[in-house]
C-alpha cells in the first residue's frame, strides 16, 4: 500500500513561499559529513540554505515552497547516508537560548567595564601611595563612575529582576543581598566621589557582577547542553502513526493526531494515542503502561492506551479526546494530587541566602550603631557599615552552590544521567530508600529469548523465520539469528505465526496450534514468567521461552546500593508470580506486586510518613504519579513521555549503574556544596571583623572578593579531577562518554534496535 508522509507539522513558514525545518541528524562525526550533507542538499532544486550545526548535530534547512518538500529532503538525507529526524524545538530550549544570549551580553559588558575601571582603580591605589593630586583622583573617580553606572545597570539586569520577583512574592533569595550590595556600593561611591573622598568602590561592584555572571552562564550552559541532547534523543524516538483519511493512509507524527482521527496500527507497532478500537482483534502488550508483562486480548470496542504494543492483528482505532474514565485521566488526577501534596523542599542555596541576608544586614546595622555610639560622625558610620556589606559580598556564597552544580551535572551527564530539574542533585543526595519498578526498570525494556537447552540448529532456523515477523515475541527471538538473512518466501498469517519452505519441508513458527503441537508441555513451558513461541520443522519441535531479562548489572548494582546504606524495595504492577523470581534473584525481600498507580503512591506516602526519603525509579505510565510523589525520581530513557516529564533525571543505556552513580555523584556534590559554604563562612568570619573596625580599603575589598570567589570555584573543580580519577579506577563506571559527542554511536544503536523491532518505526523508512 502506498503511503504518503505528512511532515507539515514540523515545517515553519518564514515569509511568503519560504519554508524552514530543523532536523536532528544521525551519524555525523567529521568534516566530510558536514560537506556531504550540506552540498548534497544545496544541489537539490529549491533549497535556499542548508546549514549543519556540528555541536548540536542539528541541520537547519530553508527552501522555496512548491519546488521541493520536507519528505524529499528527509529521503535525500537518508540516501546520502544520514538518517535525519524532523524536530520541533521545545519552547524551553528557545527561552534558554535567549537567556544564554542575554547572560553573555551582560557578561561582556561587565567584563569590559570591570577591566577598565580596574585600570583606573589601580592607578588610584598607586597614586594614593605616592603623589597623586586630588584633582587627578577625582577625575579618575568620575571616569570610573561614568563607566560603572551604565554598565552595572545593564549587566545587573538578571539579578535585579530576580530580586524584584522574589521580594514581590515576599521571599528572600540570593539575588536580594546581591542587588542591595551592588546598589549601596555604587551609591556610596558616587557620594564619596562628589565629596572628593579618597575611597570609591566602583571596581568592587563590577567585579562582583562579573564573577556572578560567569557562574550563572556556566550553570545555564550546562543545562542547555543536557537539554539539547535530550531533545535530539526524543526526536530520534519520534513515533509516527498511520492516519486513515478519505484519500488513503497518511503517516503523521503522533503529536499531530487529533481526537476523532482514525488510525491504523499494524502488528508490532506501538499504539500512538489513547483511543477506542473500531475494527480488528489483537493482543496488546501493556508493559509500558501498567507493568503487566502478559499481553491483554483486545477487540472492537475496547479502550487501548498510548505506549502499549499491538502484538498480533492489525487494528483500526479512533483517537479519543481526553475525557473521564481513561487510565491516563486517572494517572493525571493522581499526578495533580501528588504534585500539590509535595512539600516544596527549600533549596540549600535559598536557605543559605535567607540566613546570609539577615545576618549580614543585621551586622551592618549594628556596625553603624556601634560607631555612632562610639562618637563617629553619621557619614563615617554609614561608610563603614556599607564597607561591611561590600566585603561580605555574597560572591563566595552565591558561587559556592552553582559552581558545584555545574561540575556535578557535567559528571552525571558523562555517566549517562540527564538532569531534568535544577535542584535534583540536592534531593538525590538525601534519599535513604530506593523503590524500583520491575518491568522496564529492573528488567530490560524488551524481552529476550531464553535459548539455553535448545538445539542450536533448530534455534538458528527459528530465529531466521522470526526475522520476517513483527510480533514482539518473534522480534525477541530474531535477536538470536546472528545476522542471518530471513528465508525467502516467508508468509505471515496474522494472529497465528509465520511459515516458510525450508529444505523442501514446511517450517512453522508461532502459536501452539499453528505449529500443530498437542498438549505435550516441556519443562520450560511450565515457567510462569515466560511467554512461549513454538517452532516445528520436519517433525522436530521446540518451545522457546521468551522472558523479561534483568539488566545485566542489576544484581551488583542492587548489592552496591545496599552497601551504601540504602533500603531497596520493588513495587510492581505485574503479577506476583512474575515479580517473585526477580526479587529472589536480586535478593530483595520487600516487594509488592499487582499494584495500581494509587496503591504505589500509597506505599510511598507510607514510607514518607515513616520519615524516609524515597528515590523512585520507574518507567511505566503507572509509575508517573509515584515518581511525582517521591522525594527524588529517575526514569530510563525508554520510559513513556508522561513519566519522563515527571522524573528528576533520565538515565541512558541498558545498565542500571547510572542509578547508583546518580546517588553517589549527588552525595559527593552535596558534601562539596557544604564545604564551599563553610569556606565562604570562614572567609566572612575573617573579613567582617576587619570591616567592622573600619580597616577596609577598596584594595582590600577587591582582593578579598576575587580571592574568595576563586577559592570556592577551584574547590568545586577539584571534585571534577577527583571524579575523573575515580571513574578511571572504575569506582564510578561511566556507561558512555556522552559528553564528548552529543549523539554517540552507542545511543543511536539503542534506537536503531528499537526501530528494527518495530516499536518506533520511522516514517520515511516506510515511505522509501
Amino acid at each position: 500500500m502506498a503511503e504518503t508522509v505528512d511532515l507539515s507539522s514540523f515545517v515553519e513558514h518564514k515569509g511568503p513561499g519560504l519554508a524552514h525545518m530543523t532536523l536532528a541528524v544521525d551519524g555525523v562525526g567529521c568534516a566530510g559529513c558536514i560537506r556531504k550533507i550540506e552540498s548534497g542538499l544545496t544541489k537539490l532544486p529549491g533549497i535556499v540554505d542548508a546549514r549543519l550545526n556540528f555541536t548540536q548535530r542539528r541541520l537547519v534547512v530553508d527552501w522555496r515552497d512548491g519546488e521541493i518538500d520536507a519528505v524529499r529532503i528527509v529521503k535525500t538525507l537518508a540516501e546520502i547516508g544520514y538518517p535525519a529526524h524532523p524536530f520541533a524545538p521545545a519552547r524551553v530550549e528557545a527561552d534558554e537560548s535567549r537567556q544564554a544570549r542575554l547572560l553573555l551580553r551582560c557578561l561582556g559588558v561587565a567584563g569590559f567595564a570591570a577591566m577598565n575601571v580596574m585600570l583606573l582603580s589601580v592607578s588610584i591605589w598607586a597614586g594614593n601611595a605616592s603623589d597623586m593630586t586630588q584633582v587627578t583622583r577625582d577625575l579618575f573617580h568620575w571616569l570610573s563612575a561614568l563607566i560603572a553606572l551604565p554598565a552595572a545597570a545593564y549587566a545587573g539586569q538578571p539579578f535585579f529582576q530576580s530580586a524584584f520577583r522574589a521580594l514581590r512574592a515576599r521571599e528572600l533569595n540570593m539575588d536580594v543581598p546581591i542587588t542591595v550590595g551592588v546598589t549601596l556600593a555604587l551609591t556610596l561611591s558616587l557620594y564619596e566621589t562628589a565629596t572628593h573622598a579618597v575611597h570609591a568602590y566602583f571596581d568592587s561592584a563590577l567585579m562582583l557582577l562579573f564573577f556572578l555572571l560567569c557562574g550563572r552562564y556556566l550553570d545555564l550552559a550546562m543545562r542547555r547542553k543536557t537539554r539539547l541532547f535530550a531533545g535530539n534523543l526524543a526526536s530520534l524516538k519520534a513515533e509516527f502513526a498511520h492516519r486513515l483519511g478519505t484519500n488513503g493512509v497518511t503517516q503523521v507524527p503522533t503529536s499531530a493526531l487529533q481526537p476523532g482521527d482514525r488510525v491504523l496500527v499494524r502488528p508490532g507497532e506501538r499504539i500512538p494515542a489513547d483511543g477506542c478500537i473500531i475494527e480488528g482483534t489483537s493482543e496488546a502488550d501493556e508493559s509500558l503502561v501498567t507493568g503487566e508483562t502478559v499481553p491483554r486480548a483486545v477487540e472492537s470496542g475496547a479502550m487501548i492506551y498510548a505506549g502499549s504494543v499491538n502484538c498480533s492483528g492489525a487494528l483500526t482505532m479512533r483517537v479519543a479526546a481526553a475525557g473521564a474514565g481513561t487510565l491516563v485521566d486517572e494517572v493525571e488526577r493522581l499526578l495533580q494530587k501528588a504534585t500539590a501534596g509535595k512539600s516544596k523542599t527549600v533549596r540549600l542555596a535559598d536557605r543559605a541566602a535567607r540566613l546570609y541576608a539577615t545576618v549580614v544586614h543585621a551586622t551592618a546595622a549594628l556596625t553603624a550603631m556601634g560607631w555612632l555610639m562610639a562618637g563617629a560622625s553619621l557619614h563615617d558610620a554609614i561608610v563603614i557599615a556599607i564597607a561591611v556589606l561590600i566585603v561580605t559580598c555574597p560572591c563566595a556564597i552565591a558561587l559556592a552552590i552553582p559552581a558545584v552544580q555545574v561540575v556535578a551535572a557535567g559528571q552525571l551527564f558523562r555517566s549517562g544521567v540527564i538532569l531534568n530539574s535544577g535542584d535534583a542533585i540536592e534531593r538525590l543526595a538525601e534519599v535513604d530508600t530506593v523503590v524500583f519498578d520491575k518491568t522496564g526498570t529492573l528488567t530490560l525494556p524488551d524481552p529476550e529469548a531464553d535459548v539455553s537447552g535448545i538445539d542450536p540448529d533448530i534455534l538458528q532456523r527459528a530465529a531466521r523465520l522470526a526475522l520476517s515477523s513483527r510480533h514482539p515475541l518473534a522480534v525477541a527471538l530474531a535477536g538470536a539469528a546472528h545476522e542471518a538473512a530471513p528465508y525467502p518466501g516467508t508468509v505471515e498469517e496474522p494472529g497465528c505465526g509465520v511459515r516458510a519452505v525450508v529444505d523442501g519441508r514446511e517450517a512453522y513458527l508461532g502459536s501452539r496450534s499453528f505449529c500443530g503441537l498437542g498438549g505435550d508441555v516441556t519443562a520450560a513451558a511450565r515457567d510462569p514468567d515466560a511467554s512461549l513461541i513454538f517452532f516445528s520443522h520436519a517433525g522436530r519441535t521446540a518451545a522457546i521461552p521468551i522472558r523479561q531479562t534483568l539488566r545485566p548489572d542489576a544484581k551488583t548494582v542492587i548489592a552496591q546500593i545496599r552497601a551504601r546504606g540504602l533500603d531497596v524495595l520493588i513495587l510492581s504492577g505485574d503479577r506476583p508470580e512474575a515479580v517473585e523470581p526477580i526479587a529472589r534473584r536480586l535478593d530483595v525481600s520487600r516487594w509488592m506486586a499487582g499494584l495500581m498507580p494509587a496503591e504505589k503512591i500509597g506505599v510511598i506516602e507510607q514510607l514518607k510518613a515513616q520519615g524516609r526519603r524515597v528515590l523512585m525509579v520507574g518507567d511505566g505510565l503507572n509509575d508517573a504519579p509515584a515518581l511525582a510523589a517521591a522525594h527524588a525520581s529517575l526514569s530510563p530513557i525508554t520510559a513513556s513521555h508522561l513519566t519522563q516529564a515527571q522524573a528528576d533525571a533520565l538515565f541512558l543505556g541498558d545498565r542500571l549503574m547510572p542509578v547508583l552513580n546518580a546517588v553517589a555523584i549527588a552525595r559527593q556534590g552535596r558534601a562539596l556544596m557544604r564545604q564551599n559554604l563553610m569556606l565562604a563562612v570562614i572567609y566572612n568570619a575573617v573579613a567582617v571583623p576587619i570591616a567592622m573596625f573600619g580597616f577596609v580599603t577598596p584594595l582590600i575589598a577587591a582582593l578579598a572578593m576575587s580571592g574568595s570567589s576563586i577559592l570556592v570555584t577551584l574547590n568545586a573543580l577539584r571534585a571534577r579531577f577527583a571524579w575523573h580519577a575515580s571513574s578511571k579506577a572504575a569506582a564510578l563506571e561511566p556507561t558512555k562518554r556522552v559528553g564528548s559527542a552529543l549523539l554517540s554511536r552507542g545511543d543511536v544503536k539503542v534506537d536503531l534496535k528499537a526501530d528494527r523491532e518495530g516499536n518506533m518505526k520511522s516514517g520515511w523508512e516506510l515511505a522509501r
Partner: protein
Amino acid sequence: MNVLVYLVPAALLLGLTGLIAFMWTLKSGQYDDLDGAAVRILPDDDIEK
C-alpha cells in the same frame, strides 16, 4: 599629567572596540556552533585547482 588627556580616551576607546566586536560576534551567531568551526576548516574544497 597632560598625557592623560589622550591616553585615557585611547584606553577607553580600545576597550569599547573590543566590547563592540564581542557583541557583533555574539549577534552573528559565532558561538552557536563552536565544534563545527573547528572541523569546517579541514576540507580544502574552496581551493581552486
